């Protein structure tokens, strides 16, 4: 299996710049997510790794070998598409055998390999069925099987679960991740679903407008977002942005929100002007007292927790709190924020300000 190194890769389609100079490394055996909204360049990046698009500039190394200009067939990478295409006139066994037969593998070996893969995917029972009558899940398993039989160095997957309904997607994503844990194959997976990325990924690259915004483990990206885009895209509900005008010195440990002092992680750079106080909904606490106050606009019951939407002097805010706390629409409540989790941003650039919370992560780009 394989390590994939992406170095300053760029792709232009005519005058349109689909991917700006991007660099990141996918370690051997990692389940690696390319996450972002549609049009951000994630699929183009994946297609360049697979060889379906050639980069305008930059390099791609697969196990140390530079492959960016090789045709797909020379790369030893398997691709699983969103709309899995199976040969409708062939049965499951022949769909799985096809990639091997076309490579010229001996019939006996093909048979053994297909049986082995069918075993891994739990589809031994349907090997002789035509693919036409299969359920969505079984079709997906066959499509995966066709990628696996070749034993490629790495798998590329472009929203393979995008076409499935929510409940089934949850099930298949667990199955896919368990399969990865058994096989340990380097996998690059494209999705626009942040929860899917957090659940399945060892590492995540967040892309927006052709640019890599952040690269790290799910928890790092969640706790220490590098930009407002990442903070907003990851998490549901997403991070709250309380906007304020102010200035703070290098070393500051608090800011002033509407005249109230709010503690923040020790800052490692000064800033002034339009700033943003970023706090996640689960780090907001409601109290009866408290000098920073908000008005309850709505509550949404979620079982053990609930989401409260509030109007504050610095904009709308969502809090995730225990569902036993009764919050009535129109009620005035005090608000406090867990100071160790706060990220400050520069409103103009959207970049996080460096602090003792995020310094280590931001330093790595």
């Amino acid at each position, binding site marked *: 299996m394989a390590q994939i190194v992406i170095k300053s890769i760029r792709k232009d389609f005519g005058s349109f710049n689909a991917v700006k100079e991007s660099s990141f490394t996918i370690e051997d055996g990692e389940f690696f997510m390319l996450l972002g909204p549609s049009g951000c360049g994630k699929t183009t990046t994946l297609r360049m790794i697979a060889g379906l698009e050639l980069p305008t500039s930059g390099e791609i190394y697969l196990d140390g070998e530079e492959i960016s200009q090789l045709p797909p067939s020379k790369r030893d990478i398997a691709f699983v598409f969103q709309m899995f295409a199976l040969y409708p006139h062939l049965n499951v066994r022949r769909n799985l055998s096809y990639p091997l037969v076309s490579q010229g593998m001996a019939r006996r070996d093909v048979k053994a390999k297909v049986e082995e893969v069918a075993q891994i995917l739990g589809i031994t029972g349907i090997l002789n069925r035509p693919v036409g009558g299969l359920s969505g899940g079984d079709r997906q398993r066959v499509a995966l099987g066709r990628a696996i039989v070749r034993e490629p160095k790495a798998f590329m997957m472009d929203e393979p679960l995008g076409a499935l309904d929510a409940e089934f997607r949850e099930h298949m994503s667990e199955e896919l991740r368990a399969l990865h844990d058994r096989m340990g194959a380097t996998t690059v997976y494209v999705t*626009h679903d942040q929860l899917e990325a*957090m659940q399945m990924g060892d590492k995540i690259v967040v892309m927006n407008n052709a640019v890599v915004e952040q690269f790290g483990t*799910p928890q790092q990206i*969640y706790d220490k977002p590098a930009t407002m885009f990442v903070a907003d895209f990851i998490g549901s509900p997403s991070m709250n942005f309380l906007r304020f005008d102010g200035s703070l010195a290098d070393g500051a440990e608090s800011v002033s929100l509407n005249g109230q002092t709010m503690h923040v992680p020790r800052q490692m750079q000064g800033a002034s002007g339009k700033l943003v106080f970023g706090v996640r909904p*689960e780090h907001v606490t409601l109290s009866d007292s408290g000098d920073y106050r908000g008005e309850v606009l709505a509550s*949404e019951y*979620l*079982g*053990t927790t609930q989401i409260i939407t509030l109007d504050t002097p610095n904009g709308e805010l969502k809090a995730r709190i225990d569902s036993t706390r009764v919050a009535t629409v129109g009620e005035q409540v005090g608000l406090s924020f867990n100071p160790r989790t706060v990220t400050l941003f520069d409103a103009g650039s959207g970049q996080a300000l460096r602090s003792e919370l995020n310094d280590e992560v931001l330093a790595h780009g």
Partner: protein
Amino acid sequence: MAEVVLKNLSKSYGQDVGIADVSMTIPDGAFVVLLGPTGAGKTTTLRLISGLEKADGGEIWIGGRNVGGETPAQRDVAMVFQQYSLYPHLTVRDNLAFPLKSPILRTPADEIARKVAEVAGILQIAHKLDNKATELSGGEMQRVSIGRALVRDPSIYLMDEPLSSLDAKLRTDLRVELKRIHASLGATLLYVTHDQIEAMTMATQVGVLNEGRLVQYGTPRDIYENPNSLYVASRLGLPRINIVPADLFGGAPAGATHLGMRPEHIQQGEGQEAEVQRVEHLGDQARLHLILNGHAITTIADPHTTYTPGAHIRIAPKNPLCFDAQGARIF
């Protein structure tokens, strides 16, 4: 707006049961959500109420009137479909005004203008009124199609998964918006979805459907905390409730064959020893996938938990739900 009552409503398509013997009351001003997987009978129920389908048996009462013999237009209901179908050659304004121009309603022109402006304001599309329908984003188009129902003042709004074709962010925004519209108009809504989050967050009452039957009807809190069957317990809650044999933790309660433990209702540090299979760091929480005597169990831990696969952890149920062999709740 009006109360809608269904009495022993049934509908089959050949051998296939659409809905069977459904009785429920949708109170005036309620936001009722019908929840169930594909094929549970949600859409059939909506189509029967709207008059797009004829029932095999049972009665439908809207505002105290048995509407069995009435056409869809006479029933005075407004329907919003999953796939928004707007008139592509008309502007947003004309799309919104269209239902009011129906010959049955004969709405005066100034009343139409007033109503369209009001609805555009509620849905925050006032600045797009003169755009062609095709010049809108997906979320805006769906808002216009909801708006086309809202310009009317029907007995009830019927909505068939109106948010399911939108992306996650937009869905969250429109959820809050729909709730606000419901509160400010005092409208009666019957809303159909397979999305449990929509059901829990928006509904005043949730009806859970299973294979054409209404299996439980109550407030979201009621359904979540007091499900009457294994089926209902598994419909709500993310991650899903853990269902294990009743004697997994020793001594099964009398009559119980299965225990239902919500992931957040598991005590850590006491009880039986389970092995960690996988840890998912989701930011606000971590999910631990455990295995205990061959049974998969999911529970929640601190987002920065240091557990790794292979670790051992003692767990015990905390206020579990008990079910009998038929899947009915005993206590």
